[in-house]
């Protein structure tokens, strides 16, 4: 065994280069247009065991992605109704938002390993932790949505006495709270995407440019769904338009996710995750179509609203499953990293001085 034996991975590169016609120069940032058509390349692993630990989260977190988005969408709907004088829309939005944020809180606490320590989330405020940022967003958004919904109950309060005072004070407070909720709603709707992306799970991390848009669109669509369901078609104009906007955003971003990630897009297209995402797309399309065509009939509007909600659930669960699947198979961890490593080595070999190694992590 002579000392100048070629470095072990060397043969792999020669084999791969000759198979794919030259080192693959993926574009920086834009994640390379065409699919990384490396042949089903071989890789080694430790007895086939995954390199990463699959996420320990369960369906509760996937459900929270939906309820969080719903709350955000509903608050926007409510604020829209409040500002443009559509009390029906406002009331539906606010109540749906309260329901959704309560469900979110329950789901989040239940998913914790030690639920009784949920208040530890407020122990620190860490910009490096999307979950910490999200907790503070929820802390701001929750009471606002709560107050806004409470304000809806003002008309049933008696005239005089302390309750009477509350009856008079609530509406303006409700309006302010509604606006506050709407102000934090977009953050609430999209931070969950950053939460998933800021992990080592290959398919979630790789999708970070598009995931927020998917979640934003999905949130809008579910908000619109609430509007279509709860508001007579006459007042549901904005809901219909919001549904279209939401669907457009979601479908565009989802397409990016499924096709622009190369090998790491595979989990979004295959298996259970693939089926869920395809169902989500179909339901979104049906929902929007239903909203547009069924302007007049209350039943069709309601149906399309439900479809939009279901679509949002399917999309969220689909994205969740895709991530878990990508963490389980060592291929999705080893191959892209091996690829990135070889690319960097090739670049270093090309002009050693320019390449100072990967852009040093931002000084966080």
């Amino acid at each position, binding site marked *: 065994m002579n000392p100048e034996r070629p470095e072990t991975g060397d043969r792999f590169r020669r084999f791969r280069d000759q198979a794919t016609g030259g080192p693959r120069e993926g574009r920086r940032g834009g994640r390379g247009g065409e699919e990384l058509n490396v042949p089903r390349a071989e890789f080694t692993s430790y007895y086939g065991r995954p390199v990463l630990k699959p996420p320990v989260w369960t369906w509760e977190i996937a459900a929270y992605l939906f309820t969080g988005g719903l709350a955000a969408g509903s608050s926007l709907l409510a604020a829209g109704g409040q500002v443009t004088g559509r009390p029906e829309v406002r009331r539906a939005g606010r109540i749906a938002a309260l329901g959704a944020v309560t469900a979110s809180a329950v789901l989040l606490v239940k998913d914790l390993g030690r639920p009784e320590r949920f208040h530890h989330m407020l122990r*620190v405020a860490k910009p490096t932790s999307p979950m910490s940022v999200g907790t503070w967003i929820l802390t701001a958004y929750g009471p606002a949505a709560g107050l806004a919904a409470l304000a809806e109950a003002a008309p049933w309060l008696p005239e005089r006495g302390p309750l009477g005072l509350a009856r008079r004070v609530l509406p303006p407070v409700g309006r302010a709270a509604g606006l506050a909720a709407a102000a934090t709603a977009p953050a609430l709707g999209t931070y969950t995407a950053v939460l998933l992306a800021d992990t080592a799970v290959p398919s979630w991390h790789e999708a970070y440019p598009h995931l927020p848009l998917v979640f934003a669109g999905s949130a809008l669509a579910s908000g619109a769904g609430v509007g279509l369901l709860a508001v007579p078609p006459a007042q549901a104009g904005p809901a219909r338009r919001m549904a279209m906007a939401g669907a457009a955003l979601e479908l565009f971003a989802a397409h990016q996710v499924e096709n622009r990630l190369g090998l790491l897009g595979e989990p979004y297209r295959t298996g259970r995750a693939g089926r869920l995402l395809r169902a989500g797309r179909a339901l979104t399309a049906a929902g929007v179509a239903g909203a547009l065509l069924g302007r007049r009939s209350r039943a069709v509007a309601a149906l399309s609203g439900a479809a939009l909600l279901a679509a949002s659930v399917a999309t969220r669960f689909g994205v969740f499953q895709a991530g878990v699947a990508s963490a389980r198979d060592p291929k999705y961890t080893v191959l892209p990293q091996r690829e990135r490593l070889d690319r960097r080595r090739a670049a270093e070999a090309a002009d050693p001085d320019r390449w100072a190694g990967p852009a040093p992590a931002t000084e966080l």
Partner: protein
Amino acid sequence: MGLRDVLLGWPVYRQLTGTDPLGRGAAAQSARSAGLTARTQDADRVARSVCPYCAVGCGQRVFVTDNQVTQIEGDPDSPISRGRLCPKGSASKSLVTSPLRQTTVRYRRPYGTEWEDLDLDTALDMIADRILAARAETWEDVDAEGRPLNRTLGISSLGGATLDNEENYLIKKLFTAMGALQIENQARI
């Protein structure tokens, strides 16, 4: 803990006022973590011992607190092992504190199907009687040609390699004086 202390202790407050704005180090440390120390530091005493497993003879330090063994690790002073231990030596604490360790005398009567309890003193007495009976029954004074034998072949013993030299010495001395010469140990297995 007054409200003021709660506020001062709140990591977010420490983030804002302290040297760790991102809350990833000093600010996030809890009181318990700050007070952590190795249990060997506050042990009542340390016994210098030797590993009971193989014959390399690695040095061991046994830390004791309130008469409980709290840690057994390598003895860095030993020129043989330099503070190191193998997996068995490292598991010595689990060995001596194993829940499977027997701590009471157990007795099985002839033709019995279960274990019974027996107190130590009675057991010692019963064993002594049985030794004397077996010895008397199988004693050989002289051989065919009248040469002295002074022995009993009715009693056997096996074991010694895991015992101390002092224990082996008493065992050999007592059995030899009893004429029971059929004693053996792992050295011949």
